């Protein structure tokens, strides 16, 4: 599903984001990516959605070599990967429903498709009852679940979440992780970047640990290694 060969990313002339990464993620896997601040986790996530280009190496997603993807093809890649980024928020002046629908609108989907898809993804994240609230009328965890719902509108094969629980308390974190597990159970590959020790230890899934741009550990049923 996701295949990285000898990937390096150098910002400018000498800031090493990633160094010689080899990584393969199978369809349906749930992968946690952990590491200290500056280890290169976000850099890895940005390479997967072609927000950044690798300096060296080769990336393919679902058999599609995106190493030198053309700019006009990027939208098609992004419809195959749902993204939940920390700084990638909801639009305050739009309701939950409208926020999710927006992703479909700007992709040129018909109104009929929108009316079918929005309730479906809101149900997946358990927010069908709060569809007509505005972001400030729901909790942080619920907001993050709306962001996940929005990431699901194109039925992506991969869901990529960069610290989706960063600002959440324990209960809201548990809700969000629950939703991610459910999406994984439906068959999507989930890549979760996180700092949260409890989350990683309870998930008992594959854990990849990055340090200074390198993979220092890759365990099938891993634990959170680093002390923060």
């Amino acid at each position, binding site marked *: 599903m996701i295949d990285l060969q000898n990937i390096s990313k150098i910002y400018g002339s000498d800031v090493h984001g990633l160094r010689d990464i080899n990584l393969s993620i199978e369809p349906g896997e749930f992968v946690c990516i952990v590491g200290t601040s500056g280890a290169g986790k976000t850099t890895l996530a940005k390479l997967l959605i072609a927000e950044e280009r690798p300096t060296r190496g080769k990336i393919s997603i679902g058999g599609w070599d995106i190493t030198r993807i053309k700019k006009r093809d990027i*939208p098609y890649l*992004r419809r195959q990967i749902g993204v939940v980024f920390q700084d*990638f928020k909801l639009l305050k002046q739009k309701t939950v429903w409208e926020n999710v629908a927006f992703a479909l609108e*700007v*992709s040129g989907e*018909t109104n009929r498709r929108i009316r079918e898809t929005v309730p479906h993804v809101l149900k997946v994240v358990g927010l069908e009852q709060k569809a007509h609230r505005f972001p400030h009328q729901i909790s942080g965890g619920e907001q993050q679940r709306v962001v996940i719902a929005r990431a699901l509108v194109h039925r992506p094969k991969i869901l990529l979440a960069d610290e989706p629980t960063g600002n959440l308390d324990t209960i809201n974190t548990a809700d969000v992780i629950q939703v991610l597990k459910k999406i994984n159970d439906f068959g999507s590959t989930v890549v979760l970047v996180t700092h949260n020790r409890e989350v990683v230890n309870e998930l008992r899934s594959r854990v990849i640990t990055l340090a200074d741009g390198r993979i220092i550990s890759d365990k099938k049923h891993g634990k959170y290694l680093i002390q923060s």
Partner: protein
Amino acid sequence: MFIITPVGRVISFAVKNITRNAWIGLATVLVLVLALLSVNVLVGVNALASSAVTILEKKIDVSVYFKPETPNAILDQARSYMASIPQVERVTIMTAEEALTAFTERHKNEPTILDALNELEENPLGATMVIKARKTTDYPFLMENLNNPQFSFAIENKTYDDHSIAIQQVEQIADSVRYFGLILTLIFAIFSALIVYNAIRVAIYTQREEIGIMRLVGASNAFVRLPLILDAIFFAILSLAIAAGLVALIISFGEPYLVSFYDGEDPGLKSYFVDNLLPLIIAQGMAIIIIVSLSSWAAVGRYLKK
């Protein structure tokens, strides 16, 4: 359905942008209107200058005064000879009697002149022949032809009513107005491109969150780009309409004041704009739409490139 949905959505996004950034939009329209007005001043000056030249050219002619008592046969000969020259447009003859009638009519309120005229037993005036050439440059040639010995002995006097200096002056003034108008138009065209560019940058800034989301959820670039370009084109069309209204207003109020400079004749401003309405609107519309499209395209392009 496949096409209509995105098209409708692009338009509704475009409308939303305009209402959000109304002030910037207003400033943009103002500059575009100024650019269009300066173009039309240029067009107007050209029209005024060419009608002034035409009017002056119409006034150029040669008057030939014959001696009194020149026989009609000679007059006829002179007339038919001159009329046979291809460069001549028209020859008119005023006979001695007609000249006298015209003279008394002109001086009917001046008894001393009429008295003096009555003192004379014979008509002191001769016949007059007025020759109009097809082209102003042909007059010297016609003057030479008047030296024909068949009738030149009967000619008492000739006047060549030359307006070439006045024509030159009109053309000089028009040239310098054109020159400054061109510079003004160029400046406004550059301003237009810049202000549209900035208006679109501001529009991008006010909706950076939406655009960021659009790009991450896989909206095609057209969805980001088209509403913004559509906004710019909307500004262009609005400006075109406002400028057209202003030009119409200025002409209908201003032209009557020009009539006195034109000896009571039509300055030809309104008729020029009316006759060339469609080409003027199409040319200016195309030009302004191309300018705003390119500059808004560039503004969005710089953003999308990141």
